[in-house]
Every structure is written in C-alpha cells, then in structure tokens.
C-alpha cells in the first residue's frame, strides 16, 4: 500500500505486468474510490459548471458524459475531470484525488449565492472501474440491464446487487468497460461478484501503465497548473468562446497564438526506461522534460511522454533521453501508443 492523494492505495496486488495484461486480454477491476465525486443540483447548475469546465456543459444531454479540464484564469490546468449529466438539473463531477481540496476550493470561489447546490458525495459512493474486453459481459451477468446497449460516454442508473448504482461507460485504460458508482456498503459485494467472474484486481501501478499506453495524461505528471490544454494536446476538449467562462480570455489567446511546446509520445530506440524528470535532449541541448515513462507490456517497448518545442514535435523526430547520465535514443510517435482498434 502507498499513500496517494490522502488515501492508502495498492500499487499492485500480484504483479503490475500481470494486472495490465489481464485488462488488455480479459478484464481487470480497480478500486478508484479515491476519485472525487461532487454532485451539483439546481436550475443554475449547468450555467455554473459552464463557467468552470473547458467544454460546453449546457449542450450535454441527460445520460451523457464529457471529459474536460478545469483551468485557472491564466489557462493553467487545475485538474481534469469527467462531468456526467444525470438529470435535467443534476450533474456529477469526477475529478482526481490528488488535488480534490484545491478543486473544491476553486468551485466554492465561483459558486453563486443561489441556484446551485454542491454536494460532496465522495465518501458516500464507492467507485469501481471494470475494464477490458470481457468487462461488459461480467457486469451484465450481475445487473438486469443490457449494458452492451449503453454507448461509450453514457451513464445509466440501474439496480445492482440489491442497491441502485450509477454505471458509466468510461474509463482510464484504453479498454472498453464501465466505472460503477454505488453505495460504499455494497462495494465489497460488487468486488467479490466480479472476482467470482474472473476479473483481476488491479492496483495503481497497472492503471498508470495502461493509461500511458492509451496516451491519456495524468494530472500531476503530464498536466498541472503550469501547463495549458492546448500544449497538452487537449484542445479538442476546450471551447474558450463561451460567455462567462473563467479561463476564456487566456485560452483564446493561447489558441490564437498556437502553443510554443507540445506534449508528445516517444518510444525508446536504445536500451533504457525514461522516467518522470529525465531531460529530453536534442544533441547537447535540453529541449524538454519527461513527464511520464514506463515499460509498455502490451507493446513490448519502453514508452514515455514529455513536452518539447512544437517545432520538434513531429512524429519520426529523433531525440535523446538523459537516463541518469546515459543519453538514450528515442523517437517521437503519434499518440496514443495503444488503441484497442489500432492494435486489434
């Protein structure tokens, strides 16, 4: 177990590599109860969230989910999050654990005096992600709903193990699957039911490997308040032209100027594993820093992400990673490293 964002989290149950392979080939389950769960209700909920989130919240239809970032007025990323529209005037926001307090402070700062109520339900609901090619069939055999009919980035409320659960077809692994939110008293029953059906318990270590293979940024590694969504390759999740959006001015400027640096993926061509903080070199010059790096058990390569000047960010560009004093050849490749369609 390891401390993570104020929670004690398992890095691995058995083996990070075994767990990661189970998610790609069968199904794995992750206790992601450390993620925040914040509910917003009231006639002003959509307008409020639209001021905070990078994407257009009022356009979101009931039962749908959207990924976005929460930016400060300079365009820096306070956190990334998924927002779910549960009902006409009811939304659920799921940010990261690591800076939940900062996010909540930020939300409170912009909260209007009336029209919207914020309810932090992180400790009432547990959250279990079930991911992998067999995830849907395993969950289907527990619920009465036909979950294969729920399309990606949709959320449904359904009875599950004698309680009511929220089932969202979202995840952070690059595989198909659901994130299940249910009353904490029923979480162990769900875990046991999934274990019986052959799901592999997975820890944070496997989650980090899988999200990196899928090219998904991790807040605190690849994105933070010193990075903006355009340089992080998240421009498609940003609409800066909405009235009242708190980061709109800054993000319009960044968009119009174009980012000076870009988050890229690279594969190691020499022997070595890039790690967070290693310098990215172009010959003798440091041009950037590694933000994430790992082995990729799915691709059998060593992979990483980091920021480089936009002029040096094209696929095929050769660069070097300073791995504790050894300069190891690497090559920029398009993200994601792995997608289940591309790699089928």
């Amino acid at each position, binding site marked *: 177990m390891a401390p993570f964002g104020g929670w004690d989290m398992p*890095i*691995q149950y058995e*083996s*990070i*590599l*075994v767990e990661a392979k189970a998610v790609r080939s069968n199904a794995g389950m992750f206790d992601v109860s450390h993620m925040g769960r914040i509910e917003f209700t009231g006639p002003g909920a959509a307008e409020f969230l639209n001021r905070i989130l990078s994407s257009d919240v009022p356009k979101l239809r009931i039962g749908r989910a959207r990924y976005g970032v929460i930016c400060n007025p300079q365009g820096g990323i306070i956190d990334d999050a998924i927002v779910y529209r549960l009902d006409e005037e009811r939304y659920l926001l799921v940010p990261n654990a690591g800076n939940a307090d900062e996010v909540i402070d930020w939300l409170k700062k912009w909260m209007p005096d009336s029209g919207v109520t914020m309810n932090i339900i992180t400790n009432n609901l547990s959250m279990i992600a079930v991911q992998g090619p067999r995830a849907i069939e395993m969950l289907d055999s527990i619920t009465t709903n036909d979950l294969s009919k729920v399309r990606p980035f949709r959320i449904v409320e359904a009875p599950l193990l004698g309680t009511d659960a929220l089932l969202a077809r979202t995840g952070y692994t690059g595989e198909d699957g659901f994130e299940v939110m249910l009353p904490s008293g029923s979480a162990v029953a769900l875990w046991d039911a999934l274990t019986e059906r052959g799901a592999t318990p997975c820890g944070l*270590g496997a989650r980090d*490997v899988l999200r990196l293979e899928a090219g998904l940024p991790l807040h605190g590694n690849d994105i933070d308040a010193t990075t903006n969504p355009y340089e992080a390759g998240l421009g498609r999740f940003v609409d800066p032209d909405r009235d009242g959006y708190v980061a709109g001015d800054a993000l319009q400027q960044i968009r119009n100027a174009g980012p000076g640096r870009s988050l890229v993926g690279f594969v190691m061509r020499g*022997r*070595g*594993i890039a*790690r967070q903080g290693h310098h990215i070199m172009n010959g003798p010059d440091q041009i950037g820093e590694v933000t994430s790096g*790992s*082995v990729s058990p799915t691709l059998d390569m*060593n992979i990483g992400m980091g920021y480089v000047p936009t002029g040096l960010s094209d696929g095929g560009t050769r660069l070097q990673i300073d791995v*504790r004093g050894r300069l190891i050849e690497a090559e920029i490749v398009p993200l994601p490293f792995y997608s289940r369609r591309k790699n089928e």
Partner: protein
Amino acid sequence: MNVPDNLKYYKEHDWVRVEPDGTAVVGITEFAAESLGDIVFVELPEPGTKIKQFDKLGEIESVKAVSDLYTPIGGRVVESNQAVTDAPETVNDSPYDSGWLVKIELSDAGEIDNLLSAAEYEALLAAEG
C-alpha cells in the same frame, strides 16, 4: 523466503558464490527480487570492468522504480549474464540460478570474510521486518 546456505550475502540483498576455479558468481536475493516486483531492465558492467567491494555494480528497474546494484565482492568482471539483460524477468523467476548477474575474478579472496552467512542474512531480513 529462500536463503540458500551455500551462499554469502551482502546487506544490500546481494549474494555471491565462489566457484572451484576461483571466480565469484553474483546475484540478488529472492527477497530483493520479490521486493522489486516485475523486473523489466537490468544494466550490468562490461566484461573487463574493475570494481571494488561494495561499489555500484549497475542498475535494476522494476515497472515502478530504479534501484542501484552493489557488488558484494571486488575484482574484474569476466562475464555479464546476457540472459538477464535480454529477459530481465529471469531474475524474478530464478534469482539464485539462471538469474545470476555477473561473474567476477576475485582480487582478494579475503573479502568474503566481510560478508554475511545465510543465517546472518536471515536475521537481517527478520530485523528489517
């Protein structure tokens, strides 16, 4: 935890076995391999490299972390285990046998006396909890 009696140990969780011809075979213990988890990368010195007892021998990486390797014995490296650099998981699978790391021509056989017996190493593991 398997701690073979016929080996000598260094507190950084390395073992050494002196062969009849006088060369020393060096590896990491089962405890070290299990603590590291899935080993995915091993960097070892080139043959011919001279190293002193307890100096850094190389690096070993699991999925999550990098650790330095130390040599329990000084001398000249005569062979690095290619099987381990090609397939680092060999160290997890067989830390005392096919997962050995380097063979060293001893500079001073007396250095063996600076190392722990199996019983002493087991006591150290028990103390470290």
